């Protein structure tokens, strides 16, 4: 793996890096939340359940239901099943 060496990078950096970084971070998180929605629901279910978390959980459940209806969530489960079958690791 490549290791960080701040002195290594040379050349001009593109303008608008902050905007690009923000788009990359949030778009990645949204795509992950939509494609693996059950993990967000599980994470919020394990929390204490204050009003904010309860609202977030309801939102996550809506996203999960939409993802399931569109068949996106099933792709992840199928991929996970294939990985478990090939690798022989313990199922969840």
């Amino acid at each position, binding site marked *: *793996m490549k*290791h*960080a060496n*701040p002195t290594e990078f040379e050349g001009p*950096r*593109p303008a608008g890096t902050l905007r690009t970084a923000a788009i990359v971070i949030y*778009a990645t998180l949204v795509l992950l939340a939509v494609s*693996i929605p059950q993990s967000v629901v599980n994470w919020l279910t394990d929390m204490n359940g204050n009003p904010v978390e309860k609202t977030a959980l309801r939102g996550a459940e809506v996203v999960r239901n939409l993802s399931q209806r569109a068949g996106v969530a099933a792709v992840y489960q199928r991929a996970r099943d294939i990985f478990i079958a090939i690798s022989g690791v313990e199922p969840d």
Partner: protein
Amino acid sequence: MLFPTIGFAVFFAVVFPVTWLLNAHNTWKKVFLVAASYYFYAAWRPEFTLLLLVSSVFNYCAAFAIDHFKYRAQRLTVLWLAVAANLGLLGYFKYYNFFAASLMNAFGAIGVKVDIGFIEVALPIAISFLTFHALSYIIDVYRRVIKPTTSLVDIMFYIGFFPHLIAGPIVRANKFLAQTTGPRDPANIRLGQSVFLILGGLFKKVIVANYLSTGFVDGVFRDPTANSSLDLIFGMYGYALEIYCDFSAYTDIAIGIANLLGYEFPQNFNYPYRAVSVQDFWRRWHMSLSSWLRDYLYIPLGGSKFGTWATYRNIMITMALGGLWHGASWAFLIWGSLHGAALVIERMLGITGDHGDAKRGRLATAIGWVVTTQFVCLAWVFFRAPSTDAWLGYFATMFRGRSWSTSVTPFVAFIFALGALSHILPPRWFVTLEKRYDEAPLAVKVLVPFVVIYLISVAAPAGIAPFIYFQF
């Protein structure tokens, strides 16, 4: 709060925009990042945030006291008191029980019964790292490398900044405080490098380190005498890969996250298992610790200024204490001392080279790599074995040649290969990849992290173990 979790992703999704929104208001930004860092630390044990606060306030005041005095002897006296207080705190939490047990055992061996008792207190996570950060600050002030900062927030920020707080890299006070004086320039974000450091770190931790640990290494070290010699050999190499992938993953992610927030951390690893001498290894492994030990311990001890034997003594003291820094046990002391002894032997033999040493031929370099790698991997057994009996049993069984069967599954062998790739793939490939990423359209920039994290999630084990260096 572990890096590869949803909790951290949500935490960072809040910290990132607020940090940059407050960028023009530098003090408020630092106050916010201190609050975020204390929240991050409180996720383990909220009461230990008090320790962070006390350490910051104490060292803030100590730096002023050191700087106040004109004469070196006075400054040195205050420095010693401050160092003693910092090490006293570390000693109380981390080493008291170890020294108490060692003392009672020593007296017991000569027939004298001494009972000084043990303390029952949880070890604050990352106390060794925060102590070294604090020491870096007051020693730099003593050396007049930096002036004491008038802002307590700056010291709280330096000691507590969440990316390096738990397991480094150890950031020097003068390097970090210079970054806190004004707003950070967003143009300094190296997106490609940060993204690949974070993705590489996630892969090394979640896939390689976790599967090596749970799938093979933990079992081998749990009861070494129940394993075949071949499995113990694989276990030794497996742990070498595991600890590298685990620890370098943490610091890679930390460096990437800090850069996304506009801050620079030092490089901490540089292909350590490519080292061709033990000295070369320490230039590549946990570089921020080895340079800290060199600058704040080895050189103050006299370094190599007072003759051959004094140099050897200083190396041994530095490495033994460096070993003990990792944990309160004889195994860590032995591990550090072994590295110290190896460094001394290399000096005796005149071996100080690295890959760029023109005086060494290819064969000598190859032999150096083989010997160094075997030594480093053998020494890791002391580091990983939970007790003296465990490492004695490990070596006894391994060298006895008991059975050459193996329980390594094809999947574990595949993970071994993935771990080895971390040292085989040429660095220039990653540089090219980062450059291509920086030049790619926005859609590709989003798809790359999404696809990589998605695939890591597909292959991830059910739970993520804490990073090994958290215990230090």
